[in-house]
């Protein structure tokens, strides 16, 4: 059999070569890789910033930077991580690359719009960089841009919120593309309950992207209007109400949390059954919980505002609703664990990372309940407990799902396999470093250390020192993982079409896939996670 040319060798539109084949491409796979390159850059940058912040906090008093720089730096760390890494990472990279293949089609519905989204993403990033170096420097407002400070301060808030506006637009258009692709380009023989769970999770995410993102767009437009015209919509002196800014902000930014975590959950739902050689437990429950999270997640925004002075009724209602979100999340965790029960587990780096995900995400979810309950929230509000909680979810959750997805789909995207041993070492170090980094912060928070503070009282020094130490361990682990992945380009050890024994459609095509993804028309399995043939093949000692 002659192997078809991979998409690296065929350009779309035809006839382009060199760099133009990338920059003008309509191919969803190339776009996925272009996002990978951009996101990788931002992730490393923001990780270094985070490490510098924690280094500063390792000792009391000024150590490596002044308070102003510190404030700008945590804002920059937050803005980059949220808008340029966590939100786009999984949907834009792996979603673009694999959603069409999992649906059995050759591209997304609006390929040119897809390219346009990538340019918007780059433009947003460019704005962020300009804000860094131009004029009065990067804002020190925190990534939340709370009024009145964000309206009054001289730093480049305008540029930065424009960056976020443009990035939101990019994310929204990606969601639009996915929903249309999902409905109109799915293989005709693929029913709703035959769709892989990763694609389902992207579908739920896409709806949140479409419906919630415009709220942040208009909020940031209002911040701009206030800065330019001074209408006073959020200024109590002029009749405005600053709390309404917070409402609008969290109306997007809370659902955005689910834009971040849902695709990660989708990745885990793919990895766990493959390496347990066992059908996923509760396929329908996972599908419905994805949609349930998307819906329930849009009802709970004001739980970020318990101490901001809103009405008690509101505090009560939003606290109650917050507990609802825990249910679909728990359904997923139980389904993953139940899938592994009595499975024929085969340990690989993606599975290890997925297991770390489950562990860290569970901690993140449970600490979330502590914060969702009003009584405990008032005690730990705006402390390091909160910082630790959302890093458990965003980093322990989405971050590790991202690493897991990288290790899972790397052989498919590049057609080469990496070495396992360094991957295990890197993943374990990252996991251990993570705990050393964030558990002390949980304790610091309970003891009352506030977030976003440049300096602290002497009793917090031990905790902060330990956390900084853990941070270095964590970053070392990440570097080992990344270097190991990059080394695979040198080793060029080819990976077959299906190195893991997985069953979804992307593993039925060559690695890397050809331009139109499928060599022959795809054969859609009646259930995407049926491992009987895989197990039989292994039983015969076929591999």
């Amino acid at each position: 059999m002659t192997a078809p040319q991979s998409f690296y060798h065929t350009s779309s539109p035809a006839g382009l070569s060199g760099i133009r084949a990338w920059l003008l491409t309509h191919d969803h796979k190339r776009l996925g890789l272009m996002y990978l390159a951009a996101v990788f850059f931002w992730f490393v940058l923001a990780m270094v910033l985070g490490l510098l912040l924690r280094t500063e906090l390792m000792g009391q008093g000024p150590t490596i930077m002044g308070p102003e720089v510190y404030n700008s730096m945590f804002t920059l760390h937050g803005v980059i991580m949220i808008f340029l890494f966590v939100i786009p990472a999984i949907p834009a990279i792996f979603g673009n690359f694999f959603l069409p293949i999992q649906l059995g089609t050759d591209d997304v519905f609006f390929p040119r719009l897809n390219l346009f989204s990538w340019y918007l993403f780059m433009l947003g990033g460019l704005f962020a960089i300009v804000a860094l170096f131009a004029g009065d420097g990067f804002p020190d407002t925190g990534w939340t841009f709370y009024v009145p400070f964000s309206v009054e301060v001289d730093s480049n808030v305008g540029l930065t919120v424009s960056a976020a506006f443009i990035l939101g637009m990019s994310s929204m258009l990606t969601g639009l593309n996915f929903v249309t692709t999902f409905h109109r380009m799915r293989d005709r023989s693929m029913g709703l309950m035959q769709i892989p769970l990763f694609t389902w999770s992207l579908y739920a995410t896409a709806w949140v992207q479409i419906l919630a993102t415009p709220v942040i767009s208009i909020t940031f437009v209002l911040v701009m209007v206030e800065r330019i015209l001074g209408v006073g919509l959020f200024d109590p002196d002029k009749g405005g109400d600053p709390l309404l800014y917070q409402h609008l902000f969290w109306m997007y930014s809370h659902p955005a949390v689910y834009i971040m975590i849902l695709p990660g959950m989708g990745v885990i739902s793919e990895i766990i059954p493959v390496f347990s050689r066992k059908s996923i437990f509760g396929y329908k429950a996972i599908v419905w919980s994805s949609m349930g999270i998307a819906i329930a997640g849009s009802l709970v925004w004001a739980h970020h505002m318990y101490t901001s002075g809103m009405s008690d009724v509101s505090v009560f209602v939003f606290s109650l609703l917050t507990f609802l979100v825990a249910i679909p999340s728990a359904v997923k965790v139980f389904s993953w664990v139940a899938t592994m029960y009595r499975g024929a587990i085969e340990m690989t780096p993606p599975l290890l990372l997925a297991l770390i995900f489950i562990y860290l995400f569970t901690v993140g979810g449970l600490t979330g309940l502590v914060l969702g309950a009003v009584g405990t929230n008032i005690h730990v509000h705006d402390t390091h407990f909160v910082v630790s909680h959302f890093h458990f979810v965003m980093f322990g959750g989405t971050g590790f799902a991202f690493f897991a997805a990288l290790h899972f789909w790397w052989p498919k995207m590049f057609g080469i396999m990496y070495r396992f041993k360094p991957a295990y070492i890197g993943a374990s170090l990252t996991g251990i470093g993570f705990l050393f980094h964030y558990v002390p912060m949980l304790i610091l928070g309970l003891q009352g250390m506030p977030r976003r503070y440049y300096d602290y009282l002497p009793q917090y020094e031990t905790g902060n020192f330990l956390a900084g130490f853990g941070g270095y361990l964590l970053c070392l682990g990440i570097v080992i993982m990344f270097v190991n992945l990059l080394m695979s380009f040198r080793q060029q050890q080819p990976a077959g079409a299906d190195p893991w024994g997985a069953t979804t459609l992307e593993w039925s095509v060559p690695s890397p896939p050809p331009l139109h993804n499928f060599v022959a028309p795809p054969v859609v399995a009646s259930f995407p996670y049926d491992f009987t043939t895989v197990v039989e093949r292994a039983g015969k000692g076929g591999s």
Partner: protein
Amino acid sequence: MIAHKESGERIDPTGIKIGMWLFLYSEIILFGGLFVLYAAYFHRYSESFAAGGEELDRLIGAANTVVLLISSFTVAASITALRLHQRRRCICLLLFSLLCGVIFLVNKYFEWGAKFARDLYPGSETLVGGEPGLNIFFGLYYIITGLHGIHVLIGMVLLTVSLVWVVSGRATAERYSMLDNSGLYWHLVDLIWIFVFPLFYLVL
């Protein structure tokens, strides 16, 4: 906004329309954020809002409503015309719709101008020194009608592009997605105005 696969073999108007609707949802929510503010402030300052409404000219508002409604009709009719192969009529209807858009904006210009003349604009002494509720009312008035005006402009650009496509024969009775989608956008602009009109001009 319109995508057709480069091979040209597969054109799916329903899919293109779904994509357009998804985009419209985001526009609805964009204005929705402003309506959240309107609702909350109306609750707090209902009397000032009534007083603010008195300052606006109901008849100019009504005239603009009529202009937009008629233009919506002509856009819808232009799609029917194109699909019935009546290209000349389609072009005339589109030109008329564009004219309506211009009338709307000119109207708006004079309306804003009159307010400015009476010292009612963001940061003006009357508003800053006066009743806070009135300041909020006019703040929202300028932001919402301003954003709406920008959408009218975008809608006119889209209609112009469709017009060019119809004239050049790129949009035909079989392939009219561009005109259809521009039409949807134009109707959305109309929809938002239908709410803006009573909320600002008629709430007394």
